[in-house]
């Protein structure tokens, strides 16, 4: 049993908090725009900016009441003291609302688990049930899950054993998928955090009362479009109010999963085991998307009802023969041969209609049966097969050897490139068991040396039929089949990852120190990737085995237990990985060099290299961003000098800062991959009380801070209505010439810092992942009430994060970080665990 409360884990960027602050900056952008872009005088620009501030080129909403003929911003740049927040246009009253307040909540999370298990000589059984109810961070979003599992093994005869393990899970999720996509106007997080603090959340009547829809029982929300006299500008998502959608609409996904595993084991002769396994996973997902007829995008259709069905069926059949025998008490051999096949099928069905008869009735039969009723369905299949062999040998549990081979086929590849062969080999040596080590057992309790090399195949390229060209079929009265929908590649085959490991496991000083030191090298060859191609070919990418890369490094893991007594135990643990990544070989047609919009892949160099125009500071005289440019090295005949990859070579002696951005001058800008990462923590237990704390960290690497990028701009029409970072107050002005924030200018056309290294940030972070405090009741008490054990505990997950900038969460990925998605939740919870 576990209860908890969720809250947003990562703090947001420091953005402007009040309408007054926001309008002050917007005024500057408009005024500068009129002066710089349109050649207005300072006075004319002042008038223009004041006039536009609440108009369509400004925030779009009149939210201040001003005395007749007066401006909001005075000529000295200060806010007019006579301006009163709130505006009545005769029909409605407009005043900003705190969107965060109406969007977010601290949700409750409850979790209950029960399990029963037991065994007799012939039967092993296990039954468990669980229930989760998680409210999520957004109002009216929640998640419920119920699961049960039963597992039975039965020894029918000494040579025959059967087993069955069946799980059923039902879940209901009640928040729209839009919340996960940062760009979507349905994203309540994005709206609450990134929008300027100037917009009303609700529609108010002329008296300033929030209007209320009596029949639906909810307030009337402001979608920023076509409801009142005002329209939000594009950066403030006109037509959207996700908080209202969550109330007036119903978007839910329901999932039922049945997972069954059945097993038959025969032991016909001593040492030989023949096993047959069947595993079936049946996943049945339904989506209900019901949108109200009054507000939002579906209002034009009188409401919308969509239903969808996804059925996934995954079946694995496996046959194994295993033979194990020990000779002369010293040599143990273990041989395995097997066959495995897997099939995956997805069936999809959907229907939708408009104009529901009954509000929020989610069935499509509840809609008008006219031309807007529509439906669709499809099915896809995927299959693999494999055979495999393995042999293990050990000598007196001191020397271990193992070798294996498998051959796999995948339906994703053309029959002529369908099969791949993979092998592995490993060995280990338990040094501490050697006679010559006997003298050091005082301090060396264990020492094991191991090495392995293994291959693994990967066919995960994405498309189910990646080898074949596919054409869209469509048509109303006659068929069309000539438009390419997927460019296939007959030549692609398995990607192979080659893992090489050498490791040392050791235990020292009376089991006080446990440690592992490992060197790893993971070489991925024939890497599968959608390679972008020239779109003039008629398609923009093809699946390809693009080349090979290697990730290699060292991993160290240590646990130290300084105190271990009967009542008190204290241990410290830590791990560290150092990793280095390198492009070994690119497909020959790439000529050793491959660039995408912001990355470059060069043979012999890192796999994670940024390739961007370089920001060259702010021009102190104009406040415009500058970009580095240069001449290209020339041959004697005046043609461009080319490097071995056929690329032009910059002549850095001609490097100069230019106000114009040009993607030709992209240059390597460091790595996104952090070279060092890991975690550490400590555990303390004393007389039934246990306390633990754990951290995660990474050091180095460069991440693109898209979240921050969202909040630094010149105030052009495409950004007006989105909030600014407080850093904008440090924007360039003639009085503040030496700054890193470019000038504000509503007519700026050269604000391309987002395509440069400007928003790159150090990806290092330290995260406090978990704190747990627990107490296990003394057994002599609990036994009295017939309980085996009772533990009470409290835990905090996702507690804190320290990174290069407040709001930046480098854990979101190597390449980029965006703060407006449904980010990790901080969960503070408590629970009781009872064992009968």
């Amino acid at each position, binding site marked *: 049993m576990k209860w908890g409360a969720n809250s947003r884990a990562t703090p947001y960027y420091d953005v402007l908090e009040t309408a007054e602050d926001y309008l002050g900056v917007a005024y500057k952008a408009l005024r500068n725009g009129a002066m710089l872009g349109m050649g207005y005088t300072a006075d004319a620009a002042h008038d223009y900016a004041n006039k536009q501030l609440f108009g369509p080129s400004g925030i779009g909403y009149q939210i201040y009441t001003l005395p007749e003929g007066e401006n909001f911003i005075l000529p000295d740049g200060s806010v007019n003291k006579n301006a009163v927040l709130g505006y009545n246009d005769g029909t409605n009253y407009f005043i900003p609302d705190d969107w965060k307040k109406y969007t977010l909540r601290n949700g409750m999370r409850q979790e209950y688990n029960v399990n029963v298990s037991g065994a007799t000589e012939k039967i092993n059984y296990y039954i468990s049930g669980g229930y989760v109810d998680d409210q999520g961070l957004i109002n009216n979003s929640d998640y419920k899950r119920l699961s049960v599992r039963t597992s039975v093994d039965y020894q029918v005869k000494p040579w025959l054993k059967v087993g069955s393990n069946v799980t059923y899970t039902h879940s209901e999720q009640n928040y729209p998928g839009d919340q996960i996509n940062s760009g979507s106007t349905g994203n309540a997080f994005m709206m609450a955090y990134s929008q300027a603090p100037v917009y009303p959340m609700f529609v108010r009547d002329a008296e300033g009362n929030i209007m209320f829809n009596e029949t639906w029982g909810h307030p009337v929300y402001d979608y920023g479009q076509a409801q009142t006299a005002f329209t939000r500008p594009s950066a403030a998502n006109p037509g959207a109010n996700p908080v209202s959608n969550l109330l007036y609409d119903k978007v839910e996904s329901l999932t039922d999963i049945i997972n069954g595993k059945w097993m038959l084991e025969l032991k016909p002769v001593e040492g030989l085991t023949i096993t047959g396994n069947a595993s079936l996973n049946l996943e049945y997902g339904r989506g209900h998307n019901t949108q109200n007829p009054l507000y939002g995008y579906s209002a034009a259709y009188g409401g919308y009802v969509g239903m969808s069905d996804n059925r996934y069926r995954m079946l694995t059949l496996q046959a194994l023969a295993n033979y194990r025998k020990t000779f002369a008490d010293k040599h143990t051999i273990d041989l395995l041969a097997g066959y495995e096949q897997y099939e995956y099928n997805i069936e999809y069905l959907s229907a939708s209609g408009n104009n529901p008869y009954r509000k929020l009735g989610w069935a499509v039969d509840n809609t008008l049966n006219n031309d807007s009723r529509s439906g669709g369905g499809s099915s896809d*299949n995927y299959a693999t097969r494999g055979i495999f062999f393995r042999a293990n040998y050990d000598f007196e549990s001191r020397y271990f050897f193992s070798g294996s081979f498998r051959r796999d086929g995948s339906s994703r590849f053309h029959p002529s490139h369908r099969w791949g062969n993979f092998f592995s080999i490993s060995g280990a040596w338990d040094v501490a068991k050697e006679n010559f080590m006997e003298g050091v057992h005082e301090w060396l309790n264990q020492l094991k040396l191991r090495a392995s090399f293994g291959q693994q195949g990967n066919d995960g390229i994405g498309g189910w039929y990646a080898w074949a060209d596919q054409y869209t079929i469509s048509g109303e009265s006659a068929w069309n089949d000539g438009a*390419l929908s997927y460019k296939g590649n007959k030549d692609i085959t398995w990607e192979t990852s080659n893992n090489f490991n050498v490791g040392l496991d050791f235990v020292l000083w009376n089991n006080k120190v446990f440690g592992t030191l490992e060197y790893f090298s993971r070489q991925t060859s024939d890497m599968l990737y959608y390679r*972008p191609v020239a779109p003039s070919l008629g398609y923009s990418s093809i699946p390809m085995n693009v080349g090979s890369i290697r990730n290699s490094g060292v991993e160290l893991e240590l646990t130290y237990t300084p105190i271990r007594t009967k009542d008190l135990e204290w241990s410290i643990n830590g791990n560290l990985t150092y990793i280095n990544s390198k492009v070994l070989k690119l497909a020959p047609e790439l000529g050793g060099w491959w660039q995408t919009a912001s990355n470059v892949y060069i043979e012999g160099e890192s796999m994670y290299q940024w390739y961007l125009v370089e920001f060259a500071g702010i021009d102190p005289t104009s406040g415009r961003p500058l970009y580095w440019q240069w001449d290209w090295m020339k041959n004697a005949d005046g043609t461009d000098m080319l490097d071995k990859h056929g690329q032009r070579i910059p002549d850095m002696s001609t490097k100069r800062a230019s106000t114009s951005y040009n993607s*030709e001058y992209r240059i390597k800008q460091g790595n996104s991959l952090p070279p060092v990462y890991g975690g550490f923590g400590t555990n303390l237990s004393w007389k039934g009380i246990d306390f633990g704390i754990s951290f995660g960290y990474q050091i180095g690497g460069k991440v693109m801070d898209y979240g921050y990028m969202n909040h630094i701009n010149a105030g052009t029409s495409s950004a007006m209505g989105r909030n600014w970072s407080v850093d904008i107050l440090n924007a360039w002005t003639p009085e503040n010439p030496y700054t890193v924030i470019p000038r504000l200018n509503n007519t700026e056309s050269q604000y391309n810092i987002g395509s440069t290294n400007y928003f790159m940030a150090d990806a290092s972070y330290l995260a406090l992942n978990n704190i747990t405090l627990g107490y296990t009741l003394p057994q002599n008490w609990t036994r009295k009430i017939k309980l085996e054990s009772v533990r009470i505990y409290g835990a905090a997950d996702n507690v804190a994060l320290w990174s290069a900038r407040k709001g930046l969460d480098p854990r979101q990925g190597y390449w980029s970080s965006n703060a407006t998605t449904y980010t990790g939740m901080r969960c503070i919870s408590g629970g009781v665990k009872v064992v009968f």
Partner: protein
Amino acid sequence: MKALYKVLPLFAAGAILASCNEMDTAPNAGYVTEDQKIDAIEHSPELLAAGVNTLPSMFKQMHQTYDRFDDFGIASTNLMFDCMTEDMMSYNVGLNWYAGEMLFNAQGDNAVCTYILWNTMYKLIFSANNVIKTLPDEIEDETNRYYAAQALAFRAYAYFSLVQRYQFTYKGHESAPCVPLYTEENSEEVSANGGGPRATVQEVYDLILSDLDRAIEYLDGTSYTAATTAETKTFVNLNVAYGLRARVNLVMNNWAAAASDADKAIQLNNAAGLTPYTISELLNKQSDGTVLPAGFTDGNDHSWMWDINYTKDDLQYQWTNCNFVAFVSSFSYSGGYTTLGAWRYIGAKLYSSIPSTDVRKFWWVNPNEVHNGVWWTDFTNGNSRVTMPNDYVSWIRKSCTMSKGIRYLVTKYNRRDGINPADPDMARTGDYMMMRAEEMYYIKAEAEAMAGNPSQGAQTLRDFVTQYRNPSYSFAGGSAEQVQEECWNQRRIEFWGEGLALNDLMRLNKGVDRVGQGFQPEACMQIAAGDNLFLYRLPRSEVDNNPAITENNPYCTAPNPVADPTTYSWEW
């Protein structure tokens, strides 16, 4: 027991073999593999036409590049072109998807407009090449000739669209680098190399002309001379092939050829009853004497030679915002982009240049003159006052109020049947015109004049305008250039919103001067003829990934707006 041991493994092996999974999987969905296609055609030979049907359907294909509402094919790319001129004006508001083009800040190599145009056209070229490849070497029978002509004409149209955006006009820039060329002959080889080099403007036009010559040759002598229904007009018939070649020759300054192609098209049109809209049709007088201006949304109209036909089954009908009419009609009801703030207006100066005796004055609303259903009070064609149906007027007034009033709001693309809001979806949907009979007269007049007979050209123009547009029209003629200039003035009004305006600016070496046209201050720009801003840059992914292309069109920055001293009756 022993026996059982022996049998069991056999059982297991048998069970596995019996349940072996299928490894040759194939989709059962909205897409097919090449093999499935071949199999389907074997069973239903009429599916051979499906490849050809694809070509016109790709003109209206949505979301070929982006999941954006402005990625819906030719009508959208044409609207992007129009927004770069001074003739079409709109607010820079949130839901104006074309504001970037209007502000000239969408001209980078990563801009949406260049990707949409590039991908739409090259995907079309890919499919057209496939059609040609599947045809037999000897094309004899009428059906195959028709198919071959479609592939060639659509390919020519695609290259003609590209050549006019990625380089300056033909004359004087013949050897300038333009776009890569892919044909049925070289496409396999060029694809294997990762892409072709930029061909010169001359080479692109050579291919366009040769494709159109071949298309005309194939169509000549077949029954496909001219189509008369919205559905059949989606394909290229002989009249359209001539019309396309007339357009191309006009750009290339092949004046005599342009005049003769236009004339040929007119003859074919006339034989099929395809004639320009008449004044009375455009007035669309109702039985009660009121006038309901005709909206250009129906491909069945006899003026239309070539169209993009939208039916109720189209995805674009269901996604009613992703449609030309939703972007330009002022009667799009709630949900159309105009009603959401992106109203479209004609430039004030251009509007003022239309005489009040010209029936085209009807295509825009001067709200000052809309009072009590009476509009356009000094039309002298027998009416001193024109009265319109009340519901129409109330819609205009509503639109005018919603659009803040007083600029010259377009009504040219309002559906005639779109007043009844019972079916708002339909009000936002209509056919899109690819070519109208009227254009042939303008081409003929200009080409005749430029070919050395200015008075003949002036006569052709005068005859056309007097008969079909403005009974009081009295153009006196003059030098060839004067006739050409007058043709341009007429074309700007006639084809407003039809995607021809920017191409005309380019071929006539004109700039853009928005002073006096009533643009919002930030969009009031002056751009000289020949400014690199008029060129699209090749998409960055093309330059990055095509080994045969290293050089892009020049980089340039968006221009600063200029102050507009004109006094308007409205305030921005």
